[in-house]
């Protein structure tokens, strides 16, 4: 953090707009953590742009005292790409949801991630369409009974982290709305990554899909269901840190520590592994066989798209200055009169 800058407070990032989310919505927690970490990030509000699509989460920009664009359903990644290419000095966030990013905007998400544009995507995953009042989403579990699926949904759910890892994301993380400390830390780490950072936030919609993540937030069971990933540390979890994850050939396995099985036998988390093999396995972990991982799955370095765009411009200029009149007058020309 540049100490020459005026010290910013969370309140500096709050806009004057009334917040219109339902009382008790998990979005409030994400908004609060965002306002909390931005002063630590140390970028002034006028150099930040929040871009969103459509959905409950996408109202987010209105509540931030930064520049903001509330765009079209699914299209925030494309808008943000143009914005970042046009002005690479801006810090850009894409705020999206499971319907916005994975259904109508699935294509844009993939292409933003493979290009590795330097911006931060925060996907609020509540496994439901909230703003349209309760239809199943691409992350809803099969058989989910909703307004549009009275006899249960037939669609197999999409795994957001598998999708983005498939597109070669360079920063992949997951956190939970109720776990505010972890959420704040994860958001902060995302902002420190150069390239596209992708954070899935498991978020509760208390109106249309209450308790979707209860097994990961209920204080009685959560520790036995969650694996908090720590770079360089063995994958230990459980209320009493008595469980771990090991790899048997290519199959991950939950084991109870003690006796012959010790921490030495466990997988050690390496978020900077060049290939995402283990990250891909972690993305597939689900209860009850395996704990659901949260934290940073992957963080690797790859050239940013907009940086390369401007490098090409720079090289082209170094090669030949060029001016319009000489381009217009190039090729075969003739004079009359």
């Amino acid at each position: 953090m540049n100490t020459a800058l005026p010290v910013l407070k969370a309140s500096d990032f709050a806009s004057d707009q009334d917040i219109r989310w339902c009382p008790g919505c998990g979005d409030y927690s994400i908004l609060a953590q965002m306002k909390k970490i931005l002063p630590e990030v140390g970028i002034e509000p006028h150099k930040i742009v929040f871009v969103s699509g459509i959905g409950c989460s996408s109202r987010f920009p209105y509540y931030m005292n930064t520049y903001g664009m509330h765009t079209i359903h699914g299209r925030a990644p494309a808008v943000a790409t143009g914005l970042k290419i046009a002005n690479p000095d801006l810090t850009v966030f894409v705020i999206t949801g499971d319907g916005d990013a994975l259904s109508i905007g699935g294509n844009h998400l993939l292409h933003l991630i493979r290009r590795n544009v330097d911006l931060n995507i925060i996907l609020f995953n509540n496994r439901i369409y909230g703003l349209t009042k309760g239809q199943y989403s691409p992350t809803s579990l099969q058989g989910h009974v909703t307004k549009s699926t009275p006899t249960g949904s037939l669609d197999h759910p999409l795994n957001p982290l598998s999708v983005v890892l498939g597109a070669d994301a360079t920063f992949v993380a997951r956190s939970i709305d109720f776990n505010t400390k972890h959420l704040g830390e994860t958001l902060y780490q995302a902002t420190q990554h150069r390239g596209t950072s992708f954070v899935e936030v498991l978020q509760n919609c208390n109106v249309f899909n209450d308790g979707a993540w209860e097994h990961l937030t209920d204080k009685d069971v959560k520790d036995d269901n969650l694996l908090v990933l720590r770079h360089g540390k063995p994958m230990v979890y459980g209320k009493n840190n008595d469980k771990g994850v090991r790899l048997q050939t290519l199959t991950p396995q939950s084991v109870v520590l003690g006796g012959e099985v010790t921490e030495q036998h466990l997988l050690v988390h390496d978020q900077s592994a060049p290939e995402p093999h283990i990250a891909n396995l972690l993305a597939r972990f689900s209860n009850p066989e395996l704990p659901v991982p949260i934290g940073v799955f992957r963080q690797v370095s790859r050239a940013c798209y907009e940086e390369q765009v401007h490098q090409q411009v720079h090289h082209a200029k170094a090669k030949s200055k060029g001016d319009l009149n000489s381009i217009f007058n190039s090729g075969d020309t003739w004079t009359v009169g």
Partner: protein
Amino acid sequence: MLEVVRRPTPNTIFHRRLAAMLQTNLGDSSKPVQELKGATVRLAGDSGDGMQLSGMQLTNTSALAGNDIATFPDFPAEIRAPRGTRAGVSGFQVHFSSEEIFTPGDGLDALVCMNPAALVTNLRDLKPNGLLIVNADSFEEKDLKLAKLARNPLEDGTTDGYRLIRVKMTQLTRDSVAETKISVKEADRCKNFFAMGLIFWLYGRDMTPTLRFIEKKFSGALDVATANRLALKAGWNFGETTEAFPTTYQVPAATLPPGHYRSVIGNQTLAYGLMAAAKLSGKKLFLGSYPITPASDVLHELSRYKNLDVLTFQAEDEIAAICSIIGAAFAGQMGVTASSGPGILLKGEGMSLGVMMELPMLIIDIQRGGPSTGLPTKTEQADLLMAIHGRHGECPMPVIAAASPADCFDVAIEAWRVATRLMSPVMILSDGYIANGSEPWKIPDVQAMHPIVIHHPTETPDQKFLPYERDHLLARPWAIPGTEGLMHRVGGLEKEDRTGNVNYEAANHQHMVNTRAQKVSNTNDLVDPPTIFGQRSGDVLVVSWGGTYGACRTAVTQLQASGNSVSHLHLRWVNPLPRELGSMLAGFRKIVIPELNTGQLRQLIQGQLAITAHGINKVEGKPFSISELIAKIQAVVAECDAEVASSL
């Protein structure tokens, strides 16, 4: 330099040296020369025969000879349709003239056919007694079968009434390149240069620019370069030697306005205009685009100019393309997207957001035949109503239409001037005919052009920044991210007047809809009104827009010359329509609106002015011919005469 004269005399040797020095061809055939005002020539052959390349060479050469030119490339959507079939025929028509011309010509004076399929699909356009040059080597049994012909059209009377000249092009080309090491297959690919050489001889064209072109284009394959050069010269020599051509023709230079010229195609001029507009407004040009025929050339052309701060982004789809320029526009750059009908349709939601956010950006529609995939390589004007109305809600946007390839340059600049002054997306309409057609372009001096002045607020006013406060033209301020104290949010939800806050109140929505509409109609305060060509009152006023300008202007000029009371009004801005339109139309008994659609401008004008207009409408994937316009306009003039007579 150019071995065109069979038996050089001391005099011709002198001339030849002089010509080499002056880089012009002597063009002194030993045969009689007949002077023509102009000629229309079409080269037709297989998609792989190089007809488009040959056509461009003839175009360029004619332009350099000082002729006015207009071209009409016509090719199939398939890259290489099966060889020798009718579906695979590709044609390129060039009209060159010593007088000012606006169209690629009606009937053909000369038609070159490389195979039977090209002959049967093109012969109907050749004028009676027109020159028909065929590659006689490609009328074998198998060629006829590929063209689905039971009999040889050269033998069955099909070519009666034309001056048929059979040239064994395949054999002659092979013979001419024999000294090189290239294969027979490669030798056969030089045929188009042989045909070009023959046409160049016939119309006294200079081979130098094409020889230069060959040198540059095939610099990596010297044998191929040599072979093409030999084939070109062999074609010329064939014309000079054969007794089939008793005369050669000459088309003197046209009297264009003084200036420095080059030949351009519409998409290229459009790209140049966009670059000039960016420069004049001090903006970086950001083109977000997705490949589509016939708009891709704008992307190709602009992607070459990174050294001029031109940023091109090939997006993952049409939607992402327009969304990326919305992002670029918010960042304060010049966002442009170019597509054709199917892509423009997908951009509808993006354009609506652009209208709601009130950000300047350009959306270019290079129209092609529709609906759906339709006729991707053919021209049509059927997107007009989509351009004006094709969005949800009350979503007006200024729409400007280019009239010709050279006009694309001015249109791009004018569109950006209006977009930035009004803070609105602006749509530019072009079409396949303009996009791929050529004409001479008087090269402007960018330094001497009026700058496009854009003001971005930078100071933090004492009071809160109001992103939707408006000036007298109803434009809102363009505050860009990075500016301290002006943080604001834009979005698709209805805005409260002045503050830009989300607002769903009834009166506010009514006010905002009215305001956005009035703002678009204020375009008329920024642009020159159109003018009537001819008398301001009379029997018939022909009203046109877009790429039919040339055909309409030529038809009206000819009708006026033969004493008809006909005038012409060409609309540059089709939305909003000019304020004076009603009074302009009121001076005429009949209004005639020719369009390459089923009557879209007619519907608009009839609806807005509550008048009745006559339509001349065609959707055949090709431009109007002048003769068909003259005949149809004349029929309306005759109706006027009859009405006057019956009222007496």
